[in-house]
């Protein structure tokens, strides 16, 4: 064991050595605590003391040394020494070929107790190893994210010079590919007797599949950067819109600790809007919580949990979809004196009537004569309900501008004028058909995005008691119309077409209770709102997307994304790859929001001991013959010896002090 190889995991603790001043000071001004005692035969004592004096001073000196020793050992103990007797490659093998597997996934940006990130530690350790090697020795480095990217570096010196340019990436990768590449290299280049050094965070998820055998021709040293104990990580694994409730979000947490976690989840909407929830997550498990957001919903939410060893997943910025209100223009052609016969009455109620804004809708209700271009320009969605004549120019324009148009049928519609307009969109009205019996409505195409995110069974419940009495028969041209809702005989009740830009929806019955009872059913409200959302391109599948960093990289979307908000922990963090946060992206003239999140495998820090594959405490890699990089955490006996030394020293010092100082 070469003492020069002692390093410290917490070198700052060595500042404690400053406390050495204390025993030295005590020694300098030493006056033993002694009770006075009047004694007659002082002459003999003085005579005896002359001989004794030298020994007393020696004991004093010894006491000081013991005290110094205690402080030194304590500082040493707290500095957490470890002995890397393999930093030189297993003793004298610095001349052997070395292949370095560097896990550069984002999980390497977790930090240990003293706050330094695993990746920095790994690079430091690697730097030491490389410095111990002679410059020209064959050395390769394979980053996990792109194993072949740095093969042009062939010597220790080249890699050493390049080290500061290597960054961790947000790409979630496992070591499998790099390991396979390392084995290839050994085979291809005949590097027998090579050493493979693997620098990783030490979690099980760093491997998709654990190596089955140790390579015969190489020695593998496994540097696990995580501390074996005291590593804590609870992650915000996802934040999503709560299904069926635009004003709620669902926050999911994942606990990769071996112990249950009890923590406070905070949702901060800015301007003092702060929600807190105490959540318990079982060990190795998940928990989620719904937060109902107050009105108005803020544009972004900061969702955070207390910081832990991996702080990058403790804070997520989220843009709630409900925050962008939909401007709805309702043009009601029905002037029936009974409000119950007015389409706009039901529609207004479905949007929340006077409180529509609370639910994210701005509502304008006009009669056809009140329809103006400025109103159309402001609107996101136009509901034309039982209107006698379409205002062709305005509506065509609106559709071209990407607005949504909903056409509801009714007695008043002028077939000729409407057919002229609808003809542009491959539709033609034929007749109004009265059904012999009121017919229910079927979910014909549940995959249609307008239904998202409400579950199918819920929709079926919503539509269960709907009875259609009259529909307008339409003929469809070649253009592909979706038929989300239809009668049992297949004739469409709702037609939808994405015109790109612009969306068109035709409800072949009425939107009041003249031809059906739908407005009186409780499914009417979600139907109207989902319809408006889809028409306003607010449906999630197209306008709001959640992508993992891997998906962004693998689909080559990096260049298309414009950063809006980056998750707080990533601000100023020097990593490669897209940082999790909120981005916008232009797709077919529409602005799409993209929530970039970390890959879940990077959030799971469970070690080998906590997974089912192994017996508790076993590291299957060590069982394979991978040598573990020796650290104090792995050598508790070192700490026990240090502790015993402190104990013994303390006892001796206490004994000496007691002997001299007590009464």
């Amino acid at each position, binding site marked *: 064991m070469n003492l020069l190889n002692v390093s410290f995991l917490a070198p700052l603790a060595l500042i404690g050595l400053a406390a050495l001043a204390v025993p030295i000071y005590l020694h300098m001004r030493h006056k033993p*605590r*002694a009770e006075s*005692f009047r*004694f007659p*035969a002082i002459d003999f*004592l003085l005579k*005896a*003391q002359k001989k004794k004096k030298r020994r007393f001073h020696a004991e004093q000196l010894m006491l000081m040394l013991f005290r110094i020793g205690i402080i030194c050992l304590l500082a040493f103990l707290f500095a957490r020494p470890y002995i890397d007797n393999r930093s030189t490659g297993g003793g004298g093998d610095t001349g052997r070929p070395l292949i370095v597997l560097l896990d550069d996934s984002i999980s390497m940006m977790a930090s240990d107790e003293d706050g330094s990130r695993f990746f920095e530690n790994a690079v430091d350790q690697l730097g030491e190893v490389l410095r111990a090697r002679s410059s020209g020795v064959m050395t390769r480095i394979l980053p996990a994210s792109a194993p072949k990217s740095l093969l042009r570096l062939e010597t220790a010196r080249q890699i050493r010079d390049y080290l500061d340019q290597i960054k961790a990436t947000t790409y979630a990768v496992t070591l499998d590919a790099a390991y396979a590449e390392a084995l290839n290299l050994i085979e291809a280049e005949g590097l027998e007797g090579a050493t493979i050094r693997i620098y990783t965070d030490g979690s099980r998820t760093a491997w998709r599949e654990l190596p089955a055998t140790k390579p015969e021709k190489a020695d593998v040293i496994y540097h696990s950067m995580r501390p074996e104990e005291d590593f804590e990580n609870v992650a915000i694994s996802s934040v999503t819109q709560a299904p069926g409730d635009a004003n709620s979000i669902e926050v999911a947490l994942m606990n990769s600790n071996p112990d249950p976690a009890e923590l406070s989840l905070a949702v901060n909407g800015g301007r003092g809007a702060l929600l807190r929830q105490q959540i318990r997550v079982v060990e190795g498990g998940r928990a989620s919580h719904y937060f109902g957001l107050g009105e108005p919903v803020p544009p972004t939410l900061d969702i955070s949990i207390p910081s832990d060893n991996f702080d990058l997943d403790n804070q997520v910025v989220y843009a709630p979809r409900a925050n962008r209100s939909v401007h709805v223009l309702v043009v009601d052609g029905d002037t029936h004196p009974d409000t119950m016969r007015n389409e706009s009455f039901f529609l207004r109620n479905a949007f929340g009537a006077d409180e529509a804004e609370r639910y994210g809708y701005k509502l304008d209700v006009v009669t056809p004569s009140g329809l103006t271009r400025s109103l159309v320009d402001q609107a996101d969605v136009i509901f034309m309900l039982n209107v006698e004549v379409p205002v062709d120019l305005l509506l065509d324009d609106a559709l071209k501008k990407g607005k949504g148009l909903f056409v509801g049928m009714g007695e008043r519609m002028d077939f000729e004028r409407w057919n002229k307009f609808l003809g542009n969109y491959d539709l033609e009205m034929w007749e109004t058909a009265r059904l012999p019996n009121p017919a229910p409505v079927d979910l014909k195409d549940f995959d249609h995005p307008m239904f998202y995110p409400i579950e199918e069974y819920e929709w079926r419940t919503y539509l269960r008691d709907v009875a259609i009495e009259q529909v307008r028969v339409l003929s469809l041209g070649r253009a592909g119309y979706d038929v989300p809702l239809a009668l049992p005989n297949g004739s469409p009740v709702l037609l939808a077409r994405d015109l790109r830009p612009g969306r068109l929806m035709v409800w072949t019955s009425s939107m009041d209770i003249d031809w059906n009872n739908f407005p009186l059913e409780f499914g009417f409200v979600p139907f109207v709102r989902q319809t408006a959302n889809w028409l306003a391109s607010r449906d999630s599948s197209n306008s709001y997307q959640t992508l993992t960093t891997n998906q962004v990289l693998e689909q080559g979307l990096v260049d298309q994304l414009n950063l809006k908000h980056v998750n707080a922990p990533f601000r100023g963090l020097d990593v490669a790859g897209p940082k999790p946060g909120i981005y916008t992206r232009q797709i077919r003239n529409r602005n799409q929001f993209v929530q970039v999140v970390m890959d879940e495998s990077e959030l799971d820090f469970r070690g080998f001991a906590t997974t089912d594959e192994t017996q508790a405490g076993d590291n299957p890699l060590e069982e394979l013959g991978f040598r573990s990089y020796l650290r104090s955490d792995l050598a508790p006996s070192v700490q026990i010896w240090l502790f015993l030394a402190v104990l013994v020293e303390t006892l001796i010092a206490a004994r000496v002090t007691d*002997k001299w100082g007590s009464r």
Partner: protein
Amino acid sequence: MTTTTNKLANLSPKVLMGIKNLLVRARTVVEGAQVGEHVSPFRGGAIEFAQHRSYSPGDELRYIDWRLFARTDHYHVKQFEVTTNLRSFLLLDGSGSMDYAGQDGISKFDYASMLAGGLAYVLVQQADAISLTANDGPEITFLPPRTQTAYLQQILKTIDNCKPKGDHDILTLLKFTQDRVNHRSLIVLFSDFLVDLDELLPKIRILKSHGHDLIVFQLLHPDELDFPFTRFYRFESMEDQRFLVADSRSIRNLYLEALKEHQDRLKGAMRKIGIDFQQVRIDEAPDRVIARCLNGPMRAQKLRKMY
């Protein structure tokens, strides 16, 4: 010898110190000494035979000369001439170190007082003249020799009033005595003799050379002899400003060595000079000490030689 005094015999110094009156204490001590198996050689020893006279009732029977009775068939009582030239000088060291009492509360000085009182009592009973010389602070208290019984009271009262303090040790007393005592006398020294022997011994020799009979009591506290301390103390001198901070246990052996060296030298010198030297542990029963002194081989020999 009454039952009471029997009971009082062999009492520990601690019990004796409970007796407030030094006279009573002294008498107790002496009576304790006399109930012992040894017979005091002082009895009559200091008195020279003068004449016979006819016995008359009331005379003590032990003074009847039985040989003369055998010859004459008459009771005659031996009469002795009281010697006037036997003077006893009690020298009581009142230096600070004599005040050491340890934990028992009986100081060497207290003990010395008892011994001195006891001896004074014996001597007065024998009609010897007794004198007291003691340190009383910087002054030296000197009571000239007298034979009156009542004088005993005064002597004892003076002893009682002495308070040991300061560094006025036995050397001053010896010097004082040397200057004043011209006649051959009995000089009894009570001291711990924790002094420089190089200064002490010449003075003793001088006294001896003047023909005085010296009885020397060295009184030492058990603490001084055994050094039973175990702790870390700041040892302070009882006579001056000297002190020593030391661990008792570590210094004990060296101390005992130094003490032994001193004692050996003192004893050796005393023996050489021919002085009745008594080393006294002050936890001994004082009556035993007096008995030992009065009956000791040296004293007996001396007395025979002297009287």
